[in-house]
């Protein structure tokens, strides 16, 4: 258990220099990779999200934890039992058309990577059809849309309309950004709304079918 606690703390403290060693020790002590990931690393990111929401953690702490998480997952990938996987899914992310604000979107992208998702970042001012094309091309599980300007919120609906028209059934759409809220999410028919970056990742995990 001591080793597993160390993995948890290494993620929580954003210890990018020691996380791999801690994961290695946990594996040597006989813990399955899947257990290290789910019970310690993801649990630590949930705690990071809680602390961020409470104003105890700020962006640097969140990003260092995400980086530690990512480094630990890279290491775990090669040490899985047959049939196990650590990938959480594929996310296509971007700031919607007409909006060039990228700070929030970049944070969310980093948080998704930290949580084990493969991220395809389309950048800013992304036309609706580009989200759909990329999601088809990559067989994405999630499309994540960001907007900061109130004037560009309708562009989120355009993306959702196109996703529905495209017949892609499994892909979930999550929205985030300063002006959007859960009422707006319902209005435009998005699957989830993330109040901040850690919350967005958490919501997406609950949307997707559990992985073996």
């Amino acid at each position: 258990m001591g080793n597993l606690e160390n993995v948890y703390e290494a993620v929580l403290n954003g210890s990018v220099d020691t996380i791999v060693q801690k994961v290695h020790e946990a594996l040597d002590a006989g813990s399955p990779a899947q257990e290290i990931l789910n019970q310690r690393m993801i649990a630590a990111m949930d705690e990071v999200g809680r602390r961020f929401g409470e104003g105890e953690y700020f962006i640097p702490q969140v990003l260092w934890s995400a980086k530690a998480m990512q480094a630990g997952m890279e290491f775990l990938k090669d040490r899985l039992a047959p049939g196990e996987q650590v990938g959480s899914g594929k996310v296509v992310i971007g700031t919607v058309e007409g909006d060039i604000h990228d700070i929030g979107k970049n944070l969310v992208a980093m948080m998704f990577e930290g949580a084990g998702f493969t991220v395809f970042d389309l950048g800013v001012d992304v036309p609706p059809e580009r989200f759909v094309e990329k999601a088809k091309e990559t067989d994405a599980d999630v499309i994540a849309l960001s907007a900061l300007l109130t004037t560009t919120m309708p562009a989120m609906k355009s993306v959702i309309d196109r996703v529905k028209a495209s017949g892609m059934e499994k892909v979930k759409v999550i929205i985030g950004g300063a002006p959007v809220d859960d009422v707006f999410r319902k209005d435009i028919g998005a699957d989830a709304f993330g109040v901040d970056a850690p919350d967005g990742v958490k919501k997406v995990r609950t949307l997707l079918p559990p992985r073996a």
Partner: protein
Amino acid sequence: MNSPIFGVIEKIPVILDGAMGTLLMNAGIAPGEAPERVNIDHPEIVEHIHREYFNAGAHVVITNTFGANAVKLKSKGLVDQVHAINAAGAGIALKACPPGKWVAGDMGPTGRFLKPLGDLTREAMEAAYEAQARALVEGGVHFLFIETMYALEEAVVALHSAKAQGSVPVVASMTFSKNKDGFFTMMGESLEEAVTKLDHAGADGLGANCTLGTQDMILLVEKMRKLTSKPILIQPNAGKPVLKDGITRYEQTPEEFAADAKAIRAAGVEMIGGCCGTDPSFIRELARVLE
């Protein structure tokens, strides 16, 4: 010092302008067009907005160069346009500027994090801010306005790069959120830390803009006034964005905004304008209430 900002400050309070981006969109700028490019493609639209703010009672307008640094422009394929966009931005505002009024050269954040947290080197960031500041100063702005900074380290880099141009005063303004322990940047730096550091780093004026509405800004200014003797600049948002009947708008009216601005002024602020959600009608009311 006989620099223009102090000439302005002599007749405090100084009224600044309000939001630019939304007005550009209302004027028919295509979604997706970089707002800074309008300085080159449609200077008359930007000039008209500046004139509207001056007519509303603003003493200072801020150039349309918020994102016109090399780091941001590179992501839009406009990296070779840094000088042209900033010079044009300064020129347009000066053209609209009546005698006895002023133009501030706007410098917003790069949108990236410095190494090791992010991937941007300090050298690249310095070079970007120096090039922008140089073009704005050569373009004739009366002072430089570094604004909406969310990272203290970046604000200090921008401040040093701007001060290195030598000839004009520099106001540095950061954006803060409020939590149970006080006011903090996105990076976790406290208001106290930010103001003290920027003051010592040579800022001629200090500010807070965006994120917070007028009510929170009153509380912020009460703390900020105790931290510096330099001029303070405040640009609140017009409350929080709210969604009503499928349309989003900021919740405050110009009258509510101006009433709170009076309290902000009373708490010891020399320069007041508006950020997101404000327009010339807010500045008109602001000028009426404060003068």
